[in-house]
């Protein structure tokens, strides 16, 4: 009987009982989930942002704004995209940017997706524009949940990281407002620890807990966007280990729901990979397997960190791209896995860490993850 196929972390790359739901990868014994279209879409609805975060991973931010292809879409075009997503039967839509709340079209996009098509919609925001009125409107439009970025309990550090004065105060107020209109289960606060703040993870979680937050996550550093700063601000392996140790404390002492997102190599942690380590992994790479990303101009990419354009959702058939793209096939077949990782029993979960980060740092998709650089 085929309903025990609980789809979890490992099962994307495990051979399921329903054999037609999987394809072989290049690596023996590892299979990849094979479905007709993505389950989730992240749509970067705008390039504009009111913060200037030092670690921003947006792959398109250094490109020229004036080329026609790079221009953002009209409301009509954006709503057309929502129609296409409904045709593709996607379950969930994550709206990001830039900063999605900067877009005047946001509410209409959420409303159409959630009310007309019953697609579960969430946003990733820096929280600066989350006034009470905005939160109320988001709720009325049918927004399901949100992730708010917040990077340090120290006001100055937070403002330095976002490159924006008063961002600490604005985001803190935004979190408070969000908690008035959404249940705490529906709000996740995400921190991107950098060299300057890696030992502030626990204290930042504690600060947020006092605001009423129950979901707190950290993202591992993504080596895309402004690569010049990576050397200066990306945590190294030792610092990453300390981030992990604090997350364990956040879980056990503060009793918050927590994990580390962003696909890091498990062997970068100096410890045995046990159930606790696995339980604190936020996501494994599902680029091109269950998820696709739509850029501000409608371009399709495998994930937010990949700069490889697969086509354009308004000009091409996204289902054909999903089925036939050579790039997606390579990713699904695990052709970008470092040879070092072959034979590792954890490969099915970690895939050697974020492949886009590895590519951006070393210009080779099958290179090691930057966190393993000095090993």
């Amino acid at each position, binding site marked *: *009987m085929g*309903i025990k196929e609980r789809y979890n972390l490992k099962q994307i790359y495990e051979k399921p009982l*329903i054999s037609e739901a999987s394809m072989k990868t290049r690596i023996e014994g590892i299979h990849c989930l094979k479905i007709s279209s993505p389950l989730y879409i992240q749509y970067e609805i705008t390039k504009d942002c009111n913060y200037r975060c030092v670690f921003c991973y947006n792959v398109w931010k250094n490109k020229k704004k004036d080329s026609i292809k790079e221009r953002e879409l009209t409301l009509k075009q954006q709503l057309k995209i929502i129609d296409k997503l409904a045709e593709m039967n996607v379950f969930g839509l994550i709206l990001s940017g830039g900063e999605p709340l900067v877009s005047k079209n946001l509410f209409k996009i959420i409303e159409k997706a959630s009310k007309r098509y019953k697609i579960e919609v969430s946003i990733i925001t820096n929280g600066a524009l989350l006034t009470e009125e905005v939160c109320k409107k988001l709720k009325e439009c049918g927004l399901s949940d949100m992730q708010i970025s917040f990077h340090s309990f120290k006001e100055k550090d937070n403002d330095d990281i976002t490159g924006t004065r008063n961002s600490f105060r604005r985001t803190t107020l935004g979190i408070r407002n969000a908690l008035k209109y959404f249940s705490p289960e529906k709000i996740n606060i995400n921190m991107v620890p950098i060299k300057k703040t890696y030992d502030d993870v626990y204290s930042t979680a504690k600060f947020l807990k006092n605001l009423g937050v129950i979901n707190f996550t950290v993202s591992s550093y993504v080596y895309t966007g402004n690569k010049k700063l990576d050397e200066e601000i990306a945590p190294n392996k030792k610092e990453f280990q300390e981030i992990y140790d604090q997350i364990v404390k956040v879980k056990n002492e503060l009793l918050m729901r927590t994990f580390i997102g962003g696909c890091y190599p498990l062997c970068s942690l100096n410890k045995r990979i046990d159930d606790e380590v696995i339980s604190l992994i936020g996501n494994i790479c599902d680029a091109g397997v269950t998820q696709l990303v739509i850029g501000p101009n409608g371009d399709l990419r495998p994930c937010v960190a990949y700069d490889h354009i697969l086509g354009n959702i308004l000009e091409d058939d996204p289902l054909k791209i999903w089925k036939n793209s050579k790039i997606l096939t390579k990713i699904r077949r695990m052709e970008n896995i470092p040879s070092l990782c072959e034979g590792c029993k954890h490969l099915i979960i970690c895939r050697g860490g974020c492949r886009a980060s590895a590519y951006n740092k070393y210009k080779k998709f099958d290179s090691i993850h930057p966190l393993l650089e000095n090993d």
Partner: protein
Amino acid sequence: MTEYVLFKHPELKIRRENFGGIIKTARGLFLIDKKVYLLLNSIDNKKRYSELAKDKESKMIIDELLKLKVILKIKEKNAERIRDSNQKKAKSL
């Protein structure tokens, strides 16, 4: 014997695939085979348990779906009572 009426969980999402389908429930995502997909899809609005669980295999599937809260059940008598009360409310509006 008490007859039950079955209906899909209001937040259930179902998607068709070549191998059957994918369902999204509060407990997570599940892959389902063709038999399960067809059974689930046959519950349009509501359906009697006895109509759906015709054979041993169907009964097993339905019971598993009930356990996972993919579908919900209500006693037929209670369903009728709710329907009648809703109709009255609608007329009075």
